[in-house]
């Protein structure tokens, strides 16, 4: 279809056309209704599972696609982004950040309980890291889990949790040991547990994604729900952040491309002072600048994803990629709204929503400032 690439094959294109059909048929017609409802219907998760979307990156024996190539996930992000709603990706794919710890350090029994139903779309998974008292500072989190017989007793709260209102399982970061990074563990919390409660959060964008603050009041969680060894959760969380940030960068690039394509289409058809907008040099140059910046993001995205697929953990590269991609999206979305003019300010127009949803990508999964600090430390400045 396009130019030859070392990363994308005809299989990726076949896969792309399936996801495109799913998005056009099952998502695009309903986005406005979901945005108004403030959440996605559960049935969509079952449909997404049937379309092969939820299983990407997960093992086949638990209902996954069994293919570890990260470029399929990038293709999926690109196609999902065409619906023009960040909330759709964040919430439908929240298992993409909640379930990898189950896959990586869970026991076969835990995978059967917590991974399979999620990949089949029957259950919804969310990741609970951020706390009201602190954001990306995982080493200092305060939600406690005290061992009591065969259970952990969990007390504390989490906030800004994507899919938090609907989630059946929370992959929860808790303190089980001393107040250092060596005292953090991961527990899977069933949201039917007594003592668990949640409240919704109203947001600037991602409106079809249910975001919540979670409260744990003496929740008794069976010790069999502990993922990996006690006090060994920090590395799993860090590894998870790496893949989350690459996917956030993929989303930022994909939404940037939607902005660019919509701005280009508009510039071609919109007549001003008797000529199409695209004949004006100021617009032509602006469009080239947008494409140039997006292509640089894509090149960085693909090569970083490739390094990670080879088994590397290039933390600094991932931090810089996320910042490059999200900063580019902020710029490109702003330019697209400007080119569309009044039309770009109207609800129901893709670039309008994407523009409102730029900041969440620059903040979520590690704010730009945190990314820079982390990159500087990783590069031993």
């Amino acid at each position, binding site marked *: 279809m396009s*130019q030859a690439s070392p990363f994308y094959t005809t299989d990726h294109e*076949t896969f792309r056309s*399936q996801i495109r059909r799913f998005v056009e048929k099952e998502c695009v017609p309903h986005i406005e209704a979901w945005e108004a409802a403030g959440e996605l219907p559960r049935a969509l998760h079952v449909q997404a599972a049937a379309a*092969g979307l939820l299983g990407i990156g997960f093992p086949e024996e638990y209902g996954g*696609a069994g*293919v570890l190539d990260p470029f399929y996930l990038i293709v999926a992000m690109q196609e999902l982004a065409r619906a023009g709603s960040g909330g759709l990706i964040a919430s439908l794919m929240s298992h993409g950040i909640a379930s990898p710890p189950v896959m990586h350090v869970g026991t076969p029994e835990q995978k059967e309980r917590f991974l399979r139903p999620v990949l089949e779309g029957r259950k919804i998974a969310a990741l609970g890291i951020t706390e009201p008292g602190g954001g990306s500072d995982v080493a200092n989190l305060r939600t406690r889990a005290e061992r009591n017989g065969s259970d952990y007793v969990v007390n504390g709260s989490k906030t800004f949790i994507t899919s938090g209102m609907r989630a059946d399982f929370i992959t929860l970061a808790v303190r089980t040991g001393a107040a250092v990074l060596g005292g953090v563990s991961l527990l899977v919390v069933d949201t039917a547990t007594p003592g668990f409660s949640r409240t919704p959060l109203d947001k600037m964008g991602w409106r079809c994604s249910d975001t919540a603050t979670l409260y744990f009041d003496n929740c008794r969680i069976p010790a069999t729900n502990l993922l990996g060894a006690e006090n060994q959760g920090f590395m799993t969380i860090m590894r998870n952040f790496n893949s989350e940030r690459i996917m956030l960068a993929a989303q930022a690039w994909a939404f940037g491309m939607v902005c660019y394509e919509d701005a280009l289409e508009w510039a071609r058809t919109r007549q001003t002072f008797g000529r199409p907008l695209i004949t004006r040099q100021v617009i032509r140059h602006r469009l080239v600048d947008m494409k140039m910046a997006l292509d640089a993001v894509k090149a960085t995205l693909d090569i970083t994803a490739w390094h990670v697929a080879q088994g590397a953990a290039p933390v600094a590269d991932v931090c810089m990629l996320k910042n490059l991609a999200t900063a580019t999206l902020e710029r490109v979305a702003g330019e697209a709204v400007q080119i569309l003019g009044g039309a770009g300010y109207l609800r129901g127009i893709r670039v309008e929503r994407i523009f409102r949803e730029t900041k969440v990508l620059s903040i979520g999964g590690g704010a730009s400032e945190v990314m820079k600090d982390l990159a500087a430390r990783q590069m031993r400045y």
Partner: protein
Amino acid sequence: MKALVSVKRVVDYNVRIQVKPDGSGVATDGVKMSMNPFDEIAMEEAVRLKEKGVVSEIVAVTVGSAKCVETLRTALAFGADRAIHVVEEGEVQPLVAAKALVAVCGKENPDLFLLGKQAIDDDANQTGQMVAALLDRPQATFASKVEIAGTKATVTREVDAGLQTIEIDLPAVITVDLRLNEPRYLKLPDIMKAKRKPVENTTLGDLGVQAAGGLKIVKTASPAARSKGVMVKTVDELIAGLKNKGLL
């Protein structure tokens, strides 16, 4: 029961078609290509018949350039057991395709031959009918429902006057219409497994079919650009406008 399904590689339905500047055809370089959507419906039907236990083996076949193997891989991802590629780099007209498919039928002896009612590139709507005529076997075109019992098929056809139900003896040729089914989403594991399924290559020459067709394409041109519309405020104004154009 063996089912043969023919699939064609066409320009993807999402692509905005562009005519080559010299009028020699439609631009396909760097253009996204896909399986003809009607052939996807034929594949889906074959796979459903296999899932019901009616069909035991599905063979996909295509006639076309080396790149058409991608379309066969899609058919294999749907659930075809194996594929036959009649490699022909030049243009393939309906009668040439029909003769090649008839030759493949001669080797495979399918009980059921499913095809899309037409391909969305040239919309010829000829190949299935030609195959049935050359094979001298029953045909049921534009199928919106297919039921198989023993050696007979009951097929509901979409015809101008509505729906017509006919019963035909197998082996038979059935061409499928849009409403027969909704093709499934192909999943990554199936796309991957398709790469390990066998594809047999052959040529028109091997099959004893002449590559040259009887039709000559004189020129390809875009439809005339639509002129700008006029907004009318009242029905009276609309009627006056239509009368003015001599349409009323």
